[in-house]
């Protein structure tokens, strides 16, 4: 099994997802806020989602991190590289759990994982898939310097747009 390393930023810790994250993840996926990432879905499905997130690390050698607020230890999101079978290209994703919006956590965490995939994994580019109407996530993409590249329709997740990240700094 491949497990996530731990990364730290000013306010956040990015560490492996774990069983204790499940209740908060289930609450997010059951809510209307999950409508842009394949939800809302019930707890049974979210349990499988968590298992898939963890297994992604073994199958790809990378995957998404659990995002923790350093000051409180609260589990606040799922962020990082994602590239399951059938994905158009390796992407960076960011999902904030309920109640953690509006602090800039998604941007701070996504930037740390972008540095990690560029510096440690050697990626030379990255995309982010953002569902139509997900204005909050589009704001994060703009703050990260991304540009909207084209429309994309996924067989499971519907209509989205591909956003392109800036390349690694030389």
């Amino acid at each position, binding site marked *: *099994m491949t497990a996530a390393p731990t990364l730290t930023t000013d306010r956040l810790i990015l560490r492996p997802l*774990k*069983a204790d994250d*499940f209740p908060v993840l*289930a609450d997010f996926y059951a809510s209307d806020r999950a409508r842009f990432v394949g939800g809302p879905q019930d*707890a*049974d499905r*979210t*349990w*499988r989602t*968590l*298992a*898939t*997130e*963890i*297994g*992604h*690390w*073994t*199958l790809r050698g990378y995957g998404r991190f659990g995002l923790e607020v350093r000051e409180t230890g609260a589990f606040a999101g799922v962020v990082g590289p994602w590239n*399951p*079978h*059938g994905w158009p290209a390796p992407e960076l994703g960011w999902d904030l759990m309920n109640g953690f919006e509006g602090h800039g956590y998604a941007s701070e965490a996504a930037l740390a994982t972008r540095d990690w995939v560029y510096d440690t994994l050697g990626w030379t580019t990255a995309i982010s898939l953002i569902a139509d109407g997900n204005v909050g996530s589009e704001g994060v993409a703009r703050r990260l310097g991304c540009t909207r590249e084209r429309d994309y329709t996924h*067989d*499971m997740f519907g209509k989205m747009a591909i956003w392109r990240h800036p390349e690694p700094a030389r």
Partner: protein
Amino acid sequence: MNAPTLHTDRLTLRLAEPEDWPTYREYSTGPRSKTAGGPFPATSAWHRFAGFWGHWAICFGRFTIVEQATGAPVGHVGPYMPEGHPEPELTWTLWTDDAEGRGIAFKAATAARDWCYGTLDWTTLTSHIDPANTRSAALAERLGAHRETSFDHDGLTIDLYRHPGPKP
């Protein structure tokens, strides 16, 4: 927890490996997965496949069955307890037609059940079986399990089998 590796005379039960994907994909996208809710699109099969590692990271999980003679992965077996399951279930699945009829599922399920009882100290196990899956029902009975009740799952009636407990 970390998955151990178990052995019978002809089989090895081990943690899934990324190399199992082509065979698992054939199974999951093909007619053999019908009794498990399939066939699934490959994208969804991959999500399910990744779930093998996640299940172990969360608690315990299922093993890939490998035939020692060929080294080929031929199925998965072991304790399964996703959210919503009232108690752990022992499952067995053969991925290829070729693996049928040779006692593989029986041997693998017996070894996995012995491990649950001997190492995890469990005292009981269930198996959920679609009544249309007569081969699996026959295997449950060979394993000494009996049909305890039925329940509704996604509009299907599923039989719940109860396994005999650990030998005293």
